[in-house]
């Protein structure tokens, strides 16, 4: 299994801040399955740029608030 991408996200907290939004509700609003949202939230899958923007749009925040690049963790950087 490949190592997880060097990206963290705050989807869990953002869902909590938005009235305990469920993964299914978020999935329905961005046109994905709940399983895909769970995989993104657990950092097992990096979404496409379009999906990332859709998630940020649902929470009404900039994309950088949802996803953070951990470049310093990458070897050789």
């Amino acid at each position: 299994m490949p190592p997880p991408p060097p990206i963290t996200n705050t989807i869990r907290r953002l869902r909590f801040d938005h009235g305990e939004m469920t993964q299914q509700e978020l999935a329905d609003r961005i046109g994905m399955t709940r399983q895909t949202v769970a995989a993104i939230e657990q950092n097992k899958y990096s979404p496409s740029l379009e999906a990332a923007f859709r998630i940020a749009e649902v929470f009404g925040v900039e994309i950088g608030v949802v996803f953070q690049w951990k470049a310093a963790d990458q070897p050789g950087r």
Partner: protein
Amino acid sequence: MTMRERVAWISVVTSLVIFGYYFASVWMDFSARTLDGDALFWRFLKCFGVAVIIMLPASMVGAYLGGEKFDPPPDELERVIEARANRVGLAVLEVAIVGVVLLSVWISDIARADFAADPAGATAIMLVNLLLFVTASAAVLREVLTIIAYRRFA
């Protein structure tokens, strides 16, 4: 479990049971040196029909129980999973077909030695069933890889 993973499970189990039975019966006929092309053709059609009859309602029941659509459009992760599984399945199928072609020399030798009454017919029956076997195996492999990928991301 998504609808697509559920369909993959149904497909794998049904294929292993139904086509497992079919190919086991072909192997037994081959071992007994009693290959009957007509009987095998109708047996295959029956197995294929039974597989469809099982898979369709099972998928519909799965969709109903899960409260999902029968054939929802895939999202991006599902497309990635399917593309990977299809790529591996296709590569395996290509290699297996080349293997069947290479085996054809050995198969025609067996046909000449053990099916002297109709070696050409026996060769055709064996080759067709080998091609069916590698195609079904590649399809099952593709579904198994799909399930593994879904489990990894779950």
